[in-house]
């Protein structure tokens, strides 16, 4: 469980880097240890062999010069004359006792095992520690007088050489580990770079740029990824375009029969007074629903053009305050009061008049359908453009619905419960599309005076001409 969480926490790159570092560490540690051990053995053996040769020579000298009657003083001066290597201490054991150059290398300076072996008549050598320093003891029996010649050679200088070697090997291992980590970091970056490209492309696709494709790669390992990603993107684009075209085609096809219906029903309506009551009622239903049908088809056509990506703003100079007032006075709810910022009087902006009019009309329609009509429309100047707000005294929009309400064919849960079938469900979606096309935002909030009701706000980043 812990392991799982750890791998989850570490990214792929970190894991690759870590693996490279651990691998480099293990390998370099193994190599360093082996090198150190071999070098140590080699150095020690070399030193022991050369020392042994000298000890045998010196033992020969001692054997020639001494007899059983040689006095310890004479023996001592003989030992002092021997060509011993620097720091080596000659020691002689005989039946009469023990002779060394300095008293500190006393009788017990030599390990008992070595002494016994040599005294028993066998030449031998042995490594041992004296006060933490490694020493080499070499002993040769002098059979003629039943004595033994020893030399104690300090190996401390070898120790420090080996220590220096060890330090540099540890340093080299650490450097190798770091280099391994760096290599892992670089390799994982190289290996993951195509993934970063895929991720960027996928984000672009998600953002709606459907023609995003990966560049085809020279690399045989990467080519299938790019190819399948591009196939997927193409399929997605085809599918979305087909859906968009379908909606547009359907609406287009609906217009011709609708045209005939609208014209025919109008001809019948001209003869309305001559019709029997029941036929007249049926005619009224037809007139009303053909009108609704017509608005639905217009809205569908409008929104399918957004999906097809063929919309563009028809910007013209618009007297904003007048536009808002005209839009309100021509809407279904012409009596709604319009509150204007004084500073906006006479301001001319660049805007698509038709779309702004639709935005205001749809917001007023929405208020009329779901909230008993708008209570006020206001136009305010803010730092980054203008705010057009439509307030009502309905039930308000629950927090959960405040984003959903701008989706297509979504009327919000509260509105749906009211069972009002008159709404088409595209009005607010079109508001959002028109506003987005202007680079603006639309949202719904509570009323600014804290009373019950909703406040739909459109923020347009319009460029004020004057």
């Amino acid at each position: 469980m812990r392991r799982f969480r750890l791998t989850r926490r570490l990214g792929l790159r970190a894991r690759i880097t870590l693996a490279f570092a651990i691998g480099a560490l293990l390998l370099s540690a193994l190599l360093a240890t082996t090198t150190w051990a071999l070098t140590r053995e080699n150095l020690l053996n070399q030193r022991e062999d050369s020392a042994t040769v000298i000890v045998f020579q010196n033992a020969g000298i001692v054997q020639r010069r001494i007899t059983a009657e040689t006095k310890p003083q004479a023996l001592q001066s003989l030992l002092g004359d021997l060509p011993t290597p620097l720091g080596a201490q000659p020691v002689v054991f005989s039946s009469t006792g023990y002779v060394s150059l300095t008293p500190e290398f006393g009788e017990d300076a030599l390990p008992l095992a070595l002494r016994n072996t040599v005294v028993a008549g066998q030449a031998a050598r042995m490594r041992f520690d004296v006060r933490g320093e490694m020493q080499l003891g070499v002993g040769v029996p002098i059979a003629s007088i039943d004595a033994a010649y020893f030399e104690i050679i300090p190996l401390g200088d070898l120790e420090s050489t080996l220590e220096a070697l060890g330090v540099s090997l540890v340093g080299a291992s650490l450097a190798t580990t770091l280099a391994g980590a760096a290599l892992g970091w670089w390799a994982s970056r190289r290996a993951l770079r195509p993934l970063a490209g895929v991720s960027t492309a996928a984000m672009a696709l998600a953002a709606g740029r459907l023609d995003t494709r990966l560049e085809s790669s020279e690399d045989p390992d990467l080519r299938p990824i790019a190819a399948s990603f591009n196939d997927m993107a193409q399929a997605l684009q085809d599918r979305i375009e087909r859906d968009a075209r379908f909606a547009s085609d359907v609406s287009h096809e609906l217009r011709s029969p609708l045209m005939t219906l609208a014209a025919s029903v109008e001809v019948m309506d001209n003869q309305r007074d001559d019709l029997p009551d029941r036929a007249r009622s049926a005619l009224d239903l037809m007139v009303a629903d053909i009108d609704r049908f017509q608005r639905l088809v217009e809205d569908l056509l409008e929104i399918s053009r957004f999906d097809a990506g063929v919309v563009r703003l028809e910007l013209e100079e618009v007297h904003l305050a007048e536009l808002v007032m005209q839009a309100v006075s021509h809407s279904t709810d012409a009596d709604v009061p319009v509150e204007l910022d004084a500073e906006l009087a006479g301001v001319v902006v660049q805007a698509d008049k038709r779309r702004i009019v639709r935005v205001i009309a749809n917001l007023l329609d929405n208020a009329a359908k779901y909230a008993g009509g708008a209570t006020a429309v206001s136009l305010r100047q803010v730092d980054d453009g203008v705010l057009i707000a439509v307030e009502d005294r309905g039930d308000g929009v629950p927090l959960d619905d405040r984003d959903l309400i701008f989706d297509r064919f979504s009327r919000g849960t509260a509105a749906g419960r009211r069972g009002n079938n008159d709404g088409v469900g595209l009005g607010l979606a079109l508001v959002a599309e028109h506003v987005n096309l202007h680079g603006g935002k639309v949202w719904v909030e509570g009323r600014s005076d804290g009373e019950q009701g909703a406040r739909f706000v459109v923020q347009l980043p319009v460029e004020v001409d004057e």
Partner: protein
Amino acid sequence: MTTRILAVEDDERIRMAVKLALEDEGWAVTEAATGEDALLHFQREPADVVLIDIMLPGIDGFEVCRSIRRTSDVPIVMVTARADTHDVVAGLEAGADDYLTKPFAPKELSARIRALLRRARTSEVSSPHLRFGDLEIVPEEGVVRRNGRDVHLTKTEFRVLVELAQSPGRVFSREVLLERIWGYGYFGDGRLVDVHVRRLRTKVEADPANPRHVVTVRGLGYKLQV
């Protein structure tokens, strides 16, 4: 004499329904299913108003519009698929006076036709002789001359020029011109004015790119330069 309307529409049922609705208004309707048909009918019996669907099999509505314009200044209403496409501007540039988008209410069509007919007739209302540099306007005769030579304007172009010329120097907003000439309220399409002014300039200006008579007042509209 009854007003005659030539309706060019390839969908038979739409054509019949529109014909019924227009006949209810007291107008006579000649039907044509193709552009070729329409041009034949128009040669044989000139109409007072022509209604053309842009989408036609064979020669399209734009071409029919241009062909009619070569010989006649009859008011033309075209029917386009969408208001926000280039079709509208292309149709107006081909010589149409007004446009509707499908599906439209026949009442709306009747209103447009009535406005065009009114316009065609008001050009006969008397007004004094007007002169602006090389430009001479005789509203009574419906004649415009530049450097003494007759300039041929459609009835709508003529109305735009006379409207501006009757208050020289005054700035007319697009909305005002739309209301006075096309009978639209505030929500008329400003492109109607823009394209008609553009067409007018090619006929009355020595250099249409640098107009001296019909000038644009940025952010406000158009005026006739005194």
